[in-house]
């Protein structure tokens, strides 16, 4: 009886052992084997830090895969959890091979061209982060060479067969603070000097340009005024995200930029009527009151004309009545990093108020100065006020950086604009900036004759940052 019991235990143990080979996860069967495998994996110079950057490819040629698989069968080199696989298992797999559902996953060593990882991979596992391999992978090029034979191994290394290369390119973008040249027709900025006054802060000195203002809905070249100036940006602690500055102050001078486009729907051109000064202050001061407000960025900007151009400077030849936008101001609160939208970026939202004046001047040939056609209008009445909201997604780092913002603005005069501001950069070097705004209620009698019903401005962007 006891003998029968022992025999039964024996059968159970052996069958369990075989069963275990099939279903159990790859765990070392013994401490000794584990220890020896640890020695084995430590013999090579460890390059684990570069695993994701090593050349990686998948053999997809079904006949070539059969050839390789067959060498493994012939040399009895297929292992699962360090144990040899049975002929039944191989037969089961043969069907997958006939159907071309088996692939081979390979990775090259970092400092030479030997194959450091070789594994048979079911086709349906290819998209998984941790794919379930059919057999124990071969992690030693010399052992793989022995199994396949030198000729076949060399052919695998040559990569002259049907394959899919899956080598990762490193596109992680880190901001440099040596110089930063950001060329964008509408908002160029050249950071040319930086200094640190304690061990982790940074002061950056930049020259900048600005064409148009989106918050008063006169974007880019639609505002015939180009601002040149200098700005200082302060980082309390250095960041890889250039938007994480503590404050930014800009001061510039606006000059006529000329008319580079012909009005499409506007009945009158907008003119620049004198040099002006521009200022902008941006920062997150409320974090000093309440730490949770560190992502609330406040911005105050304005442009004010300081003088009036001589009549001859307009380049007009006949008597002309024209409109000119001389002053504007804008205050905005922007809550950055509201939440993360997976790989698409961080969601942000802004609300703001912006106002601009509009003046009607008359040019008369022979007169030295233009004449204000609404002299009795007080300063406040000349202004048009906009309230606006701006929501969008901003992504920094990685291969593609972008900011996509939807803007909706309404003026006290009953009309408004809605639109899209997008900037997409590749590797933070090349990109494109496009802004589009379309008016609503533009048939109102109060819709300004100098305004376009829709605006589109764009610029290529080149950024060199070190």
């Amino acid at each position, binding site marked *: 009886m006891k003998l029968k019991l022992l025999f039964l235990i024996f059968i159970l143990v052996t069958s369990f052992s075989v069963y275990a080979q099939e279903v159990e996860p790859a765990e070392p069967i013994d401490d000794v084997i584990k220890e020896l495998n640890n020695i084995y994996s*430590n013999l090579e*110079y460890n390059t684990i830090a570069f695993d994701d950057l090593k050349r990686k490819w998948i053999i997809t040629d079904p006949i070539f895969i059969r050839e390789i698989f067959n060498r493994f069968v012939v040399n009895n080199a297929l292992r699962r959890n360090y144990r040899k696989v049975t002929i039944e298992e191989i037969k089961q797999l043969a069907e997958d091979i006939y159907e071309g559902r088996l692939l081979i996953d390979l990775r090259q060593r970092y400092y030479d061209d030997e194959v450091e990882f070789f594994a048979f991979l079911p086709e349906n596992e290819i998209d998984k982060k941790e794919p379930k391999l059919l057999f124990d992978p071969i992690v030693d090029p010399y052992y793989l060479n022995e199994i396949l034979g030198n000729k076949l191994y060399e052919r695998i290394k040559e990569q002259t067969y049907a394959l899919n290369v899956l080598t990762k390119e490193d596109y992680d973008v880190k901001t440099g603070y040596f110089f930063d040249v950001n060329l964008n027709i509408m908002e160029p900025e050249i950071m040319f000097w930086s200094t640190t006054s304690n061990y982790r802060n940074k002061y950056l000195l930049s020259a900048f340009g600005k064409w148009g203002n989106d918050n008063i809905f006169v974007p880019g070249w639609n505002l015939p005024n180009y601002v040149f100036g200098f700005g200082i940006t302060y980082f309390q602690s250095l960041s890889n995200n250039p938007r994480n500055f503590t404050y930014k102050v800009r001061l510039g001078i606006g000059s006529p930029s000329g008319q580079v486009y012909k009005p499409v729907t506007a009945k009158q051109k907008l003119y620049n009527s004198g040099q002006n000064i521009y200022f902008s202050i941006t920062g997150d001061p409320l974090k000093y009151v309440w730490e949770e407000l560190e992502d609330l960025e406040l911005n105050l900007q304005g442009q004010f004309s300081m003088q009036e151009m001589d009549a001859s400077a307009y380049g007009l030849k006949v008597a002309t009545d024209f409109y000119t936008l001389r002053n504007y101001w804008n205050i905005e609160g922007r809550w950055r990093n509201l939440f993360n939208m997976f790989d698409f970026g961080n969601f942000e939202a802004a609300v703001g108020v912006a106002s601009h004046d509009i003046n009607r001047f008359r040019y008369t040939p022979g007169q030295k100065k233009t004449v204000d056609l609404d002299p009795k209008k007080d300063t406040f009445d000349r202004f048009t006020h906009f309230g606006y909201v701006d929501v969008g997604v901003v992504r920094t780092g990685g291969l593609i950086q972008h900011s996509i913002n939807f803007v909706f603005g309404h003026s006290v005069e009953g009309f408004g604009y809605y639109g899209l501001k997008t900037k997409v950069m590749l590797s933070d070097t090349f990109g494109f900036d496009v802004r589009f705004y379309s008016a609503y209620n533009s048939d109102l009698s109060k819709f300004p004759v100098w305004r376009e019903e829709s605006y589109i401005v764009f610029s290529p962007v080149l950024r060199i940052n070190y």
Partner: protein
Amino acid sequence: MKRFCILILVYLSSSLFGQNLDNIYYKIESKLKKDNTYLNIHAVNFKPEQKDLAALSNIPLTDGKKPYNFKVSEFIDYNFVVLVEGVEIDSMIILYIQEVENKAAASTEFITSSTSEDNQIVETMVVGFKDLQEIYFSEPEIYDRLLTFVDGILKNDPQAKKPLLKINVDEQIKKSKGISGKNNQDFLNFQRANSIHTYPRDQKTSTTSSRRRTQETSSADYKIDASFSHATFNHKAMAFPFGDISAELNFGNKATNTLPFESMTGALGVRARIGISGKTVDHQNDFQIDGKLMGRMRLNTNGLAKALPFLSAEPRLHLGSGFIFDINLTRAFGLPFINLYVASGSKDVTNPYVKIGPADSSRSFFSFTQLESSMSFYWNTSEDMTIRFRLDLGISKYDVVKAVYHKGTQTAMVYNQLLPFATLYFNFVPNDEFFAAYFKLYDGKVNLGAWFKFLQLSGGHIFRFDFNYVSSPLFRQPHEWESEGAATLLQVRYRYGF
């Protein structure tokens, strides 16, 4: 019977275990033998003496081999090949023991002379990985004895541990981002490749056994850079520790979107590079002032420009006689590289070389002042500096005076604008300077240029093809003083002594 069955169970599991164990032993031993580059292991060399033999005798071996006994011989020493560090490895592991016999020395013991070719080193693995691991598992006291022995060697002489790693990881360090030099390196590299003047070469450092000496690359007695549109000359006597001086003749002008000969001037002057240094001269870090002062004369190159087959340009704008002051400054106080150009002079409109329009209303155009100021930013795509970039961003200005020759001469300023410009330079320097190109956008026109080296003769003679192009205006109508078509210049540039 019960014991028998248990024995069968143990046998079966041990058989399975043995198979796996043999497989891993095989793989490790095979790797140790064949992988000649990537093994991160060390060899600890020692020559046994008689007193050591007690600890090193009767090392048991596997697979029926007789125990190994270390030998004491003048011609035999040993390598303990060890794995010193590793992930989840707590202490040093002895991988195998190698006997190293100098057979040639042994056979020529009594021969008075021998060459290195006669040396025949025979390395034999006398105790393998499997042997040592079996000792470790079954006779740990012997393994500990060997380990203590190796530890003793390393304590006495830490240098006895020689790495067997053959890949040079220090030479293969890769970086994902390019670099931008923090000193004058990029400026000097750019000027050496492109400038028509001489710049100091990098100092080559050679180290001798006891002291370091520095030497400058030797150069010819004089240097010439010449093409159809320019010539420069520098003699050794014009070089000083803090800088150098050279002479220049040039038919080109900056800031006007014109090619050489198109602006109808010739300029002659001197160029000086001065390094503001302390007691020792250091071109890489000293503040460098690189300036030119030239006298510019009007020259009637109108006919020449039309006759030369390699120049396609239609001169229309006269630049006045006067002076040119052109200066490049390296980074001071952390600022970028700064370039300034001023050209100005006589406002004489009495004798134009080119008149436009009918005789009763003929007119000519003159530019008397040209200004240009820019900042230069340099970067390299890799540490090797094979591909180099420079970006100049700045503002430029030139005035244009229109003179109408009808019933006397009437003049009027018709153009005087300050405009931004950007120039992107590209240099390809595989070993030495081979190819360069630039792209400039200014006042609605594109300027393109490129050169490549096509001949290098012994003795320092270098020939380059040099090409320059100025487009017609892209986004506006041409001004009256501008030709309607594009202008091109193709020439050969000769360099000697650079």
